[in-house]
């Protein structure tokens, strides 16, 4: 007890008025402007912010790992009672690793693929003079065991590619804690991992740092995760600290408008009752509009009767042939295994699953970009694999359009925004060039972009703006169904919320039906009506959103729900 009080009086890390800038040509571009931050021994403090907020830069300044032209231009960093802001390189290196550990963001690129994992951890031990030779080998196994890797002795001799993403992150945690540092900086330690793995790793990190009494500085974009794991929160925005204080207090009573906005947008924290209500309104309006459109198009060229069900997947199966050792030999890999679901007009069906669950393969089959091995996709009751002539196929293309995940890859960088949106119109020979221009202006207006962006190129737009353009392009042919393949997953929380709102508005206005593919169960509540939970190629649970969230039947669904960071935090009190 007395130790605690003593510890409480002496901060471990104290950052005052930190200024960091990046040199571009002859100018300094500020990245961090006057950040203050205090961490006490054994405490977990989280820095929360969007990309570009300066959260990682702040962390990297502490351990002198600023990339390229970055440098500290002002303020002080005190660690363990001494000013480390302007230490010589050697002195800093002595602190790095031995007193401050780092768990980097991307487990895939932070291990040397050519060196056994054990040897890499051994290197960390030897560099910090913790242990040498045989003693170090023994310590490596202990550390890996401690990090929660079963059969550590054998694992230490394996190469990184033999590890899964979660195991690699465990190895990196073992490395970060190898020298028993007093502070561990965890820079988005689980962002690249599936939610269930993320939860396991964070739980483990929590208990480990508790046992060892290590303080943790957690860098994250996820407010829910930060609030769940940290005692103290620091919210950063455009290089400045806008709000800091006890985690729960900030969550329940955010005072800076930016924090308020962030909390309102976080899908895991958004009030359930409220979203359910707005969602119901959207659906009602969308179903009504969709009904009118169907009535209008009765007996169109597409053949099949317009029905209330827009898309129906019947026992969809996709088997990939993977090369297996010998020449020409293959093994079958069933990516999608007899998945059936239906998408009613004017509603959203979400397909939720972790990486490798086969959800994107389903999307590609529904889009007719990939042929199913067996089973069928029916559009308005017509099996799309029976569309053989060009005219029928084009008619199908017009009615089903995709929006993909990566805003940086889904627009041709050589095409101006105008040409990108015009492409579907040109391909289908719709309108004169003057009419097309009017259509494009109208589409940009629908996705809330100024028509001035027409003449710009994708590299000039932000991720959210590109995603709006991709939505405008998908809308150009006036489709009835839009396949959203992780369409909001790569976006910052605020932008994500905006795009989800936009999608809801468009659905209500145009009577669209969405097939919403996502790994993030949290956003599902804001946009979907029906949920299909996929695991290893199979649909393990299908039900309405309310049912899945309130009464999940399957163990796996429950696990996914529990893993939503911050999902259990009570915001009301």
């Amino acid at each position, binding site marked *: 007890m007395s130790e605690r009080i003593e510890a*409480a*009086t002496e901060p471990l890390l104290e950052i005052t008025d930190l200024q960091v800038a990046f040199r571009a040509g002859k100018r300094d571009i500020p990245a961090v402007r006057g950040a203050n931050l205090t961490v*006490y021994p054994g405490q977990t403090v989280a820095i929360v912010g969007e990309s570009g907020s300066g959260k990682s830069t702040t962390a990297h300044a502490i351990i002198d790992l600023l990339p390229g032209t970055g440098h500290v231009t002002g303020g002080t960093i005190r660690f363990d009672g001494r000013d480390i802001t302007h230490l010589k390189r050697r002195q800093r290196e002595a602190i790095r690793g031995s007193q401050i550990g780092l768990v980097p963001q991307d487990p895939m690129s932070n291990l040397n693929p050519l060196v056994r994992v054990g040897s890499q951890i051994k290197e960390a031990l030897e560099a910090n003079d913790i242990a040498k030779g045989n003693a170090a080998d023994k310590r490596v196994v202990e550390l890996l065991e401690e990090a929660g890797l079963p059969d550590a002795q054998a694992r230490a001799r394996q190469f990184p590619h033999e590890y899964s993403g979660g195991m690699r992150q465990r190895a990196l945690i073992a490395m970060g804690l190898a020298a028993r540092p007093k502070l561990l900086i965890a820079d988005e330690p689980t962002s690249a991992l599936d939610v269930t793995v993320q939860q396991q790793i964070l739980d483990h990190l929590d208990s480990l740092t508790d046992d060892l009494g290590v303080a943790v500085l957690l860098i994250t974009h996820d407010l829910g995760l930060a609030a769940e794991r940290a005692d103290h929160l620091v919210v950063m925005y455009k290089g400045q600290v806008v709000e800091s204080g006890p985690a729960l207090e900030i969550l329940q009573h955010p005072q800076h408008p930016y924090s308020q906005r962030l909390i309102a947008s976080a899908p895991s924290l958004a009030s359930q009752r409220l979203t359910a209500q707005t969602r119901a309104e959207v659906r009602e309006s969308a179903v009504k509009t969709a009904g009118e459109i169907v009535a209008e198009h009765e007996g169109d060229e597409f053949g099949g009767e317009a029905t209330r069900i827009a898309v129906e997947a019947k026992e969809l199966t996709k088997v990939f042939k993977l090369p297996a050792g010998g020449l020409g030999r293959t093994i079958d890999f069933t990516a999608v295994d007899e998945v059936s679901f239906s998408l009613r007009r004017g509603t959203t069906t979400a397909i939720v699953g972790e990486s490798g669950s086969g959800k994107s393969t389903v999307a590609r089959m529904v889009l007719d970009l990939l042929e199913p091995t067996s089973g069928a996709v029916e559009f308005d009751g017509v099996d799309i694999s029976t569309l053989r002539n060009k005219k029928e196929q084009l008619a199908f293309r017009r009615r089903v359009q995709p929006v993909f995940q990566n805003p940086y890859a889904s627009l041709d*960088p050589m095409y101006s925004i105008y040409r990108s949106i015009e*492409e579907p119109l040109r391909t289908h020979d719709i309108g004169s060039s003057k009419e097309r221009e009017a259509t494009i202006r109208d589409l940009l207006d629908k996705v809330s972009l100024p028509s*001035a962006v027409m003449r710009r190129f994708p590299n000039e737009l932000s991720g959210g*703006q590109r995603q709006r353009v991709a939505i405008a392009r998908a809308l150009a042919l006036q489709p009835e169904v839009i396949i959203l393949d992780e369409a909001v997953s790569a976006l910052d929380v605020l932008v994500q919320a905006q795009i989800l709102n936009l999608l809801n508005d468009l659905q209500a206005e145009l009577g669209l039906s969405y097939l919403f593919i996502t790994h993030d169960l949290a956003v599902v509540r804001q946009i979907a009506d029906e949920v299909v939970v996929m695991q290893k190629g199979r649909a393990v649970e299908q039900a309405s959103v309310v049912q899945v969230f309130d009464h999940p039947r399957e163990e796996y669904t429950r696990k996914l729900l529990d893993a939503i960071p911050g999902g259990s935090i009570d915001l009301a009190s």
Partner: protein
Amino acid sequence: MPEIARPGQERFVAPLAETPLEETGTVDTSAPPEGQWKEAWKQLRSNWIFWVSAVLLLFILIVCLFPGLFTDINPRAADLGRSKEGPQSGHPFGFDAQGYDVYSRVIHGARASVTVGILTTLFVTFVGLLTGALAGFYGKWADMLISRIADVFFAIPLILGAIVLLSALNNVWSGRGYWGGVIAVVLVLAVFGWPQMTRIARGAVLEVKNLEFIDAARAIGSSKWSNLRRHVIPNALAPVIVTATVSLGVYIVAEATLSFLGIGLPTSVVSWGNDIAAAQSEVRSGRNLHVLFFPAGALAITVLSFMLLGDAVRDALDPKAKKS
């Protein structure tokens, strides 16, 4: 957690005046729009290496097109009486063993060397881009076929292959004249040069073809062929252009090498390679080095200019490959 905040961790809210909120997702419409090419040009423009090489190449190009502007001495007018005379007034580079005016031969020799370089590059780029794009985009047996054929040619060293092929050609097509000689060298160099470009183009196409905008175009209903033409090739062009500019210099050197060995351009063609070959004896004697120095210098400057241009173009089109 502690009810009383510890020093340094009190509740803090930044005054809004100091941390103004910006609207999420606004577009800056003040600056003029910039596509990838325009940006590359901006980058190129600010690179002094580009300007040095561009000025030199412009000058070399004018020399090739209008040699008459620089000299009115006939490069084939031999005056044996003045053999190996050094630089003098009216004849700044002196005379060679045959009594030809070296300055006039350097000026007139530019055309053959540069023509071979440019034509070979055009040829190789066209064939390489086409085969590489087909192999990368269609994959499967098309890739198998094209890649294996390319491997066969790739395994033969450029100069060795060209020597064999050219001496074989000399047996069936002798006395080719100026353009015949140039075209023979171009064809032979292209035969052994295209696989490199095929590999570059294939790699670039493979990288582009799995991007999401290609899927988006397919979902619109564009055919495979129009996808290749409109999206894949334009996006795979940058590395091909970079390789092309760099290899221009390589082909000029290759031509000079072949001519020096006596099997490149016919001796009747005025070219730097032929003149360097003719100056061989002077190297051995160690006297009258001006006969060797001027054609060799012109060759070096030309090749250097093309290489520098290639470097500058690469920095502009492929900033990732930039040497830091």
